[in-house]
């Protein structure tokens, strides 16, 4: 266990070390200020503006901003869909992959545009290199940029006073992609290649033993897949595949990349709010939930599979073997790293995996499932994690504010009926998609036929799929056969609801807050940077999550755990 915790603390330390400079940098980039990258990328930025016919400093109201985001994402869905349909006739297709079925193409297009990166397909057996690059890699960048600009718009709403605009969506998207995502991805990609991650346009290789080794330009996609909390693997086995994630170090890079931007955005929030403590408070709330979740998963997985009791199998953790519950895990990572990675990837809405969550112990699998159901706000997706957490902060501030006898305020902005309405919608819609989706599936015979594990675990598989899709995570209880029209269309719908059903209310709140006056802080104001508020925030997130999903969880992982133990 010590070994597991040492690795966890190294990970957290590195995340912090990167977030501290990266946060203010992101704030600077999105304020349109000059950075050290401008001499190189500045001309590209200006060139794009000229072609677009816009000025970077033109402010947009929230509706125009929302439409820009929607239009941009609709184009993305269309492009990825068409690429899959046409890949057979396009270049960079050494394996001669044919066109992809319509339901699967639609699912994949929506999945990558919504930052879900759910894989109903097997990368190496379905998609051409061109589709992977021009479709998937591009959406890895653009969906990440979308998340970041939305949260920045929300922060602007909080900070601006009696203003109509919340920024320029086009400039925000371009700046985020050019100055934040691209340079970091390039660095991560090269680091990964140094460890053995593939980066080649060569076709697959056949060994003397007859083994066929799939190849491809993996590192460039894997880098942004982690950095943008996308999670869609180049290969079917995702980051468990040795060609994506070959060593302990590459694994650490994977994990740190997932949390870098979500953590940095918290600090960017503090920078933009001109009160760093606000950013740290939000991050502290995330960290508290993360560490608690990590402890449960690590403990559960290290104990091993209770189902193997009575067999002559040694599941003990020792220096000679990683031990623990090793089904669906890789030896080079061990159960400890698998637990850490699973907690990270589901805290953030990444969804990349280095082990199959389906084969996790019931409690070890419950934690990732519940982390997604909390709304992916524990660091969460790039941007989406923070805006989700800020929605919970609004709810926390509202109840807390009432409890101290004042109309609730957050950062000097009064939280009133409109904000509560939008926050309720944003929290309600994903819950509805998850619960209704699961309910329909378990009553629909063809959907039930996709279930691969018996008993309560089968139910968990379906619940996990809808939770993952709706919260734009993308990880799976992979035993469920989801490449069917029901799941392809159903889950795609959930992804859209989970993505835009939150983004639109968030932008509406941003617009409404921007118009409001600023109320100066006083002793009577509920402080939102103290440990007490961190506690309130954690409480709100956990309580809403627990109350919404406890019945479902009782019939899934809890029943399985209590039966199996």
């Amino acid at each position, binding site marked *: 266990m010590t*070994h597991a915790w040492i690795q966890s603390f190294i990970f957290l330390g590195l995340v912090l070390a990167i977030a501290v400079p990266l946060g203010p940098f992101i704030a600077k980039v999105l304020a349109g200020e000059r950075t050290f990258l401008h001499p190189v990328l500045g001309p590209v930025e200006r060139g*794009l503006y000229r072609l*677009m*016919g816009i000025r970077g400093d033109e402010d947009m109201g929230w509706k125009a901003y929302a*439409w*820009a985001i929607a*239009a*941009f994402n609709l*184009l993305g869905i269309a*492009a990825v869909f068409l690429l899959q349909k046409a890949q057979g006739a396009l270049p960079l297709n050494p394996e001669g992959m044919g066109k992809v079925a319509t339901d699967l193409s639609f699912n994949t297009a929506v999945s990558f545009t919504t930052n879900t990166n759910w894989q109903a397909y*097997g990368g*190496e057996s379905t998609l051409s290199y061109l589709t992977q690059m021009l479709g998937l890699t591009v959406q890895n*960048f653009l969906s990440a940029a979308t998340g970041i600009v939305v949260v920045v718009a929300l922060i602007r709403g909080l900070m601006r006073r009696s203003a109509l605009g919340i920024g320029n969506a086009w400039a925000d998207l*371009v700046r985020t992609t050019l100055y934040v995502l*691209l340079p970091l991805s390039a660095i991560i990609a*090269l680091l990964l*290649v*140094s460890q*053995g991650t593939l*980066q080649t346009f060569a076709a*697959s290789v056949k*060994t*003397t033993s007859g*083994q*066929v*080794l799939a190849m491809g*330009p993996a*590192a*460039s996609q894997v*880098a*942004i897949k982690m950095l943008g909390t996308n999670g869609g693997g180049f290969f079917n*086995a995702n980051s*468990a*595949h*040795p*060609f994506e994630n070959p060593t*302990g170090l590459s*694994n650490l890079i994977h994990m740190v990349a997932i949390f870098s931007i979500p953590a940095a955005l918290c600090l960017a929030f503090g920078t933009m709010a001109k009160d760093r403590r606000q950013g740290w408070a939000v991050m502290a709330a995330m960290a508290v939930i993360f560490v608690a979740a990590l402890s449960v998963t690590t403990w559960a997985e290290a104990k091993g*599979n209770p189902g193997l009791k009575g*067999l*002559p199998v*040694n599941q003990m953790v020792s220096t*000679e*073997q*990683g*031990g623990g*519950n090793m*089904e669906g*895990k*890789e*030896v*080079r*990572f061990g159960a400890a790293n698998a637990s850490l990675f699973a907690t990270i990837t589901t805290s953030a809405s990444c969804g990349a995996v280095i082990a199959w969550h389906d*084969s*996790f112990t019931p409690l070890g699998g419950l934690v990732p499932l519940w982390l997604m159901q909390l709304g992916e706000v524990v660091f969460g997706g790039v941007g989406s994690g923070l805006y989700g957490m800020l929605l919970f902060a609004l709810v926390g501030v509202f109840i807390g504010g009432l409890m101290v006898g004042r109309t609730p305020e957050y950062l000097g902005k009064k939280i009133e009926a409109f904000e509560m309405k939008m926050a309720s919608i944003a929290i309600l819609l994903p819950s509805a998609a998850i619960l209704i989706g699961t309910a329909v599936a378990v009553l629909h015979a063809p959907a039930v036929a996709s279930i*691969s594990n018996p*008993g309560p675990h089968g139910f968990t598989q379906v619940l996990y799929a809808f939770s993952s899709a709706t919260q734009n995570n993308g990880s799976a209880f*992979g*035993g469920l056969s989801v490449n069917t029209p029901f799941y392809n269309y159903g889950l795609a719908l959930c992804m859209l609801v989970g993505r835009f059903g939150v983004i639109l209310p968030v932008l509406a709140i941003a617009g409404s807050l921007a118009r409001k006056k600023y109320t100066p802080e006083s002793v009577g104001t509920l402080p939102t940077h103290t440990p007490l508020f961190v506690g309130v925030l954690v409480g709100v997130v956990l309580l809403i999550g627990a109350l919404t999903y406890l019945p479902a969880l009782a019939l899934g992982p809890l029943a399985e755990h209590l039966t*199996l133990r």
Partner: protein
Amino acid sequence: MNLQLRPALVAFLGLTVITGLAYPALITGLSKVIFPRQAEGSLIRKEGNVLGSELIGQSFTDAAHFWGRPSVTVGPDGKPLPYNGANSGGSNQAPSNPALKQAVEERIAALRAADPEQQGPIPVDLVTASASGLDPHISPAAAEYQVHRVAKARNLPEAQVRDLVRQHTEGPQFGVLGDATVNVLKLNLALDQAK
């Protein structure tokens, strides 16, 4: 309402070219120069032939070689094809799934059959399927478990085999990252060499 079609199209196409073409091309070019071997799969070559990749495990089932992790990958025909490098994946069996228990029991039986004298508890990684189906490693304990069988099959002293295992055992990277591993393909190649 201003539909903003021009900025939308330009932004989308411009960024597609930058992130979908320029960026992968740049990374591929740089990798080719800086890390040519790693970028192309860390292949093990012998006399122009590719023996395999040091990162990808291969299927060994005879008594004279160390066995890797059980792999549940399937071939293009949907039939089991362990260590299929063109279609990675795991079992996704739940801990509560009786099929998992049965699979483990079968693997135990196979190991016992291959070496009836070895009666100790079996290291868990040797009876559970890996995530990728391509796991190149087993734990040092799993290697040790097989030393007796391999030495016997090859008529080598156990000490010599154990020594070879030790040479191919790597601790956690930098002493902390990940678990200790033994690369099965490299170990078996070394064994074949030793003969």
